[in-house]
């Protein structure tokens, strides 16, 4: 029997019930318990930056995210893994309310950013999205100069004088480990950069608005191994200053860079815990099967 990978009310549903028979466990409770105990390896638990409580997301009748409760911590990289269509991107978009842009999407539950529910009425979406930046799968610089790409965000809010703009651009590009490569072509089109450089430019755009959280949806899947390596290096550097959530299909990437890993299946967060635990000692058979490459 083929394991069931998709949700019956969602696109490309498959007929199978293998996992329906398994008891539903609340892995979240386990992961919170986990977080309380300091692990021997000298790991430190950082402050919770984002907390989701019983998050449910529907696309019309498709129940894409099911009662997901998870914690994203400051100064950590959280990896989200799972087969295609299991809801990773949907969950990620819930964190900066980009799902609001999808008319058929409906969200219930809480997403607390430093304790404040971002789905509360009256939330300033503009401010929220500046605090929680996002980098997409395809590198997508705006078709304008490198300089204008970086300063795009700050200029949305206020007039930025030339000198300050220069400073922001330099600081952001340095932060994204791109400055040395582009400092002589700031006013040339960003479209001429390589894919990896473009992706770092997209990160620099978020740094320019001083994002506190960086959401990355498969940021390296369009890049070659060298460019991927540089992004991973950069992520490790950036987590000193922010919280990072990365969706990845690449199991090695998750285990290389992340501090915590969440495994999604059919919209459920099956297991969430320290990356070493998820990969070396998964508590759930489904997680075990997935990280061993049995499916997905």
């Amino acid at each position: 029997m083929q394991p069931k990978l998709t949700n019956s009310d969602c696109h490309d549903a498959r007929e199978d019930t293998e996992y329906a028979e398994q008891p539903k466990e609340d892995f979240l409770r386990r992961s919170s318990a986990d977080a309380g105990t300091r692990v021997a390896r000298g790991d430190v638990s950082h402050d919770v930056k984002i907390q989701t409580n019983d998050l449910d997301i529907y696309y019309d009748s498709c129940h894409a995210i099911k009662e997901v409760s998870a914690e994203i911590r400051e100064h950590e990289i959280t990896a989200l893994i799972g087969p295609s269509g299991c809801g990773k991107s949907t969950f990620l978009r819930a964190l900066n309310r980009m799902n609001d842009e999808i008319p058929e999407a409906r969200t219930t539950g809480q997403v607390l950013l430093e304790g404040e529910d971002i789905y509360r009425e009256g939330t300033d979406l503009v401010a929220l999205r500046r605090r929680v930046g996002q980098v997409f799968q395809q590198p997508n610089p705006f078709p304008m100069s490198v300089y204008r790409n970086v300063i795009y965000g700050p200029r949305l809010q206020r007039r930025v004088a030339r000198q300050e703009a220069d400073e922001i651009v330099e600081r952001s590009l340095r932060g994204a480990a791109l400055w040395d490569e582009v400092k002589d072509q700031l006013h040339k089109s960003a479209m001429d950069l390589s894919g990896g450089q473009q992706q770092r430019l997209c990160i620099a755009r978020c740094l320019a608005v001083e994002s506190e959280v960086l959401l990355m949806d498969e940021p390296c899947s369009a890049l070659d191994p060298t460019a991927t390596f540089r992004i991973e290096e950069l992520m490790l550097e950036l987590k000193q200053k922010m919280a990072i959530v990365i969706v990845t299909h690449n199991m090695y990437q998750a285990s290389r860079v992340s501090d915590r890993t969440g495994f999604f299946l059919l919209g459920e967060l099956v297991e969430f815990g320290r990356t070493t635990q998820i990969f070396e000692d998964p508590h759930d058979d489904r997680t075990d099967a997935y990280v061993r490459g049995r499916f997905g």
Partner: protein
Amino acid sequence: MLSKRITRVSEWIIERFIQIAGILGIVLVLVIFFFLLRNALPMFHERTIAEVLTGTRWSPTHGEGHFGMAPLILGSLYVTAGALALSIPLGLATAIFIAEIAPRRVREILKPMVEMLAAIPSVVFGFIGMTIVGPWIAANFDAIQVGQFAALGSLMLCFMALPTIVSICEDAFHNVPREIFNSSLALGATRWQTIRGAVIPAARSGVIAAFLLGLGRAIGETMTVLMVTGNAQVMPEGLEGFIRPVRTMTATIAAEMGETPHGSLHFHSLFTIGLILFVITFSVNTIADIIIRRSEKDIA
């Protein structure tokens, strides 16, 4: 084996065909240019270029004939400028509405409707302008005495240029990757900031192409302007020129070519107008090409 050879042969034929078509296009443009030039040049045996281009009196059959083309050139300029001033904002707004704001169902109805405007023959626009819109404006606005004037031509041309502008702009907006839109929103931009700051710049080559095609359509259009702009060979002056009758270059050729003796000075003068029109539209297209090619990649 055989099928491979057939593919190769048919590929060769298609390639040659495209090549020949391309060369034919260039040859045709050159032939037309020299045809116009040959028939226009005799004009300048008897009149100087300056006299023709800056002269303010056009009355070819009066006495020796006056061939000042300034009123006609200005007439075309007024009507075209007016048409662009109306159709660019309207076309852009419509395209933005269809591409980015309207719900899917509205878009599916609106776009074909706008495109259907293109199927209406220009003489119908002229007819509507002449019998309905013009008289109505003249009856309701004191400043306008006659129901035929430059801005009426602009208005009619605006409707005729709209389908081109809307359709090409909308395609251009539609082709902007969704991620660009989302990236901008994710940086805290509003929808409107996103459209203005990211989508329009990303679609700019299409938008510029749309404007220039609209311009080409407006400047070359003959029948409608002949019917609604009043056919008065007078110099348009200031803003008031828009609400007074004018005559365009195209309308002049259409109105006078039929009753002009072959080989007369008048005949050659009409070819001169044709040549000027040709040079203008050719320049517009060339400039368009350069802008599009340059803007394809960077804005600094």
